[in-house]
């Protein structure tokens, strides 16, 4: 057996069927309950069915892509998968709805795939067991239509008991008193209090036996007392852990609530800004009145221009801004937000920035509201993605024939925008992302390669709908979303740190506020 991932920190677990209205819901619940009872009978675990999204183990029937990045494949081959214990989707078990499932008691192969067996296997993952190479084991990865009948093969039983212990005993096996060979003894299993029916040959034997029985009784009482004390200690410990968990949950909830509010606030600001931008009239050069200053990029608005006789523009705040696009261009870092950009060289942020992007690339649209993505290609051309078109520049001059529609790259004509474009240091290939999908560009044909798009979940940890991505001087790829960024670990194909770090600290050299805690120290 293999113990994989974490184990549950509690022994009383809850489960819930997500598809409660599916035709076979009753049978599914009965079978899941039966599968869980097999694990329950062989460990200290207990299970309770609830109807809640908060249940530890969620049972889901889904087909093909179902949002977790691990698509099902229609009938056959992959039947189900499950997540090892943990918060969120940890512990959940997903079954391919396209399979022909047999929810009945019969184990006849003609009736379809035996759901009970597959559920027993998947729930093993939900409890922390990995795959076993023991062909007789429930945790053997390939489907076997074995008779379960409440029994667990030794391999699986050893595994689950190593994780959660065996069913609690009132007392452990004590060595029974030695009895004379001439006596007749009826013994019950060692874990229970023995009952003796003796025939004694002599008074001395009787006295000896009585003495042993008293000693046995004393030991038994001592063990019972120890058991009670141990149980009390365990109860107190569980209570303490429960309180700790609740406290952690409360703090986590508060943190998420703060993040949610911050995201909502930023979204509102973004929407306001876009709305106002669209409404904004073209400013005549002779304008002398103060233009409304409600065009904001983020919560912090950097107002630099106080000349009342000039149109005032609100520039994004260096330290409180998400990035639309980011790229290394000619060895310098360019960060784009709205119609502005920052330029960061060897000596840090250039003075006078942010400045309007069109000051560098004047062939970009006059009504430029934002740049979706930017990268420098192998020919050292600078490629901008704006809405459904892309622009290629030789230095600051628009290349002939551009802009072109995204569809000319082989992207779907319905695609409205690109989220990010970057050259991945791991293979030096160019990638485009949009929403939940990404594409790879063939550098020779300049077209999207076959087999794309693919799901963004391969870039594990960065999620969907990212803001920007780029390869920095250190060769590493960085992904950006909202106010944070992740460094990507190419070897492990996942983010190097689970929690996004604050972009402004690293890329804009903004200092920490007084109450801020350093991410690494945290």
């Amino acid at each position, binding site marked *: 057996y293999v113990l*994989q*991932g*974490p184990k549950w920190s509690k022994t009383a677990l809850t489960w819930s069927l997500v598809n409660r209205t599916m035709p076979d819901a009753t049978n599914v619940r009965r079978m899941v309950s039966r599968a869980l009872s097999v694990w329950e009978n062989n460990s200290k675990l207990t299970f309770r069915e609830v109807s809640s*999204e*908060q249940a*530890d183990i969620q049972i889901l029937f889904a087909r093909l892509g179902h*949002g*977790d*990045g*691990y698509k*099902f494949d229609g009938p*056959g*081959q*992959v*039947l*189900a*998968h*499950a*997540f*090892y*214990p*943990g*918060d*969120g*989707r*940890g*512990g959940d078990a997903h079954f391919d709805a396209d399979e022909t499932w047999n929810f009945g008691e019969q184990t006849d192969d003609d009736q379809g*795939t035996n759901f009970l067996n*597959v559920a027993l*296997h*998947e729930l093993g*993952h939900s409890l922390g067991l*990995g*795959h076993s*190479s023991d*062909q007789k084991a429930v945790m053997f*990865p*390939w*489907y076997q239509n074995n008779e379960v009948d409440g029994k667990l093969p030794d391999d699986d039983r050893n595994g689950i008991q190593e994780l959660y212990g065996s069913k609690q005993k009132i007392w452990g096996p004590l060595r029974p008193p030695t009895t004379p060979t001439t006596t007749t003894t009826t013994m019950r299993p060692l874990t229970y209090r023995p009952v003796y029916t003796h025939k004694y040959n002599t008074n001395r034997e009787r006295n000896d036996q009585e003495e042993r029985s008293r000693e046995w009784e004393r030991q038994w009482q001592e063990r019972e007392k120890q058991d009670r004390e141990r149980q009390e200690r365990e109860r107190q410990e569980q209570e303490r852990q429960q309180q700790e968990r609740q406290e952690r*949950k409360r703090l*986590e*909830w508060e943190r*998420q609530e703060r993040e949610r509010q911050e995201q909502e606030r930023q979204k509102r600001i973004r929407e306001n800004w876009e709305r106002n931008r669209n409404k904004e009239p073209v400013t005549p050069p002779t304008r002398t009145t103060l233009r409304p200053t409600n065009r904001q990029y983020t919560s912090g608005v950097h107002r630099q221009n106080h000349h009342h006789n000039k149109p005032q523009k609100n520039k994004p705040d260096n330290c409180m801004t998400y990035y639309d696009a980011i790229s290394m261009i000619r060895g310098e870092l360019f960060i784009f937000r709205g119609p502005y950009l920052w330029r960061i060289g060897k000596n840090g942020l250039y003075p006078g920035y942010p400045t309007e992007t069109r000051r560098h690339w004047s062939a970009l649209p006059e009504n430029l509201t934002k740049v979706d993505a930017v990268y420098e290609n192998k020919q050292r051309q600078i490629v901008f993605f704006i809405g459904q078109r892309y622009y290629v520049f030789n230095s600051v001059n628009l290349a002939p024939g551009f802009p072109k529609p995204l569809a000319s790259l082989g992207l779907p004509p319905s695609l409205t925008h690109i989220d990010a474009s970057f050259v991945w240091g*791991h*293979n030096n290939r160019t990638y485009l992302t949009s929403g*939940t999908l990404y594409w790879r560009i063939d550098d020779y044909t300049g077209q999207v390669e076959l087999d794309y798009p693919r799901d963004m*979940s*391969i870039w*594990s*940890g960065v*999620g*969907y*709908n990212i803001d920007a991505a780029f390869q920095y001087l250190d060769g590493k790829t960085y992904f950006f979303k909202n106010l944070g960024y992740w460094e990507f670990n*190419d*070897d492990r*194909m*996942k*983010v190097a740190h*689970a*929690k996004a770090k604050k972009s402004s600290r690293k890329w804009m050299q903004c200092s920490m506020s007084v109450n801020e805690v350093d991410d690494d120290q945290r």
Partner: protein
Amino acid sequence: SAKSKNAISEDIMYNYLMQFDYLPKSDLETGALRTEKQLIDAIRSLQTFGNIPVTGQIDSATARLIQQPRCGVGDKNSAYSFSPDNLDHGSMGFRARVRR
């Protein structure tokens, strides 16, 4: 045609080995070229796990094994191993579940 058939089966084999963690998953993206030895080792590892004769070749027993229905979780150091960093509660479009 024999060569083409063989190429297809190797392709299926590669994908299977990557899908179930006998070869690095990053190969799915990088299309990394692997030495024959690496492929043979991965096949041997699969054959050992699947309790079939260990030949290192895509023989009939191996072909049968990879066609059998199975659990979608990988057999080694699986990427399914839960960790909070592969969650993105807000944007997975899955089920809006709050932390427990």
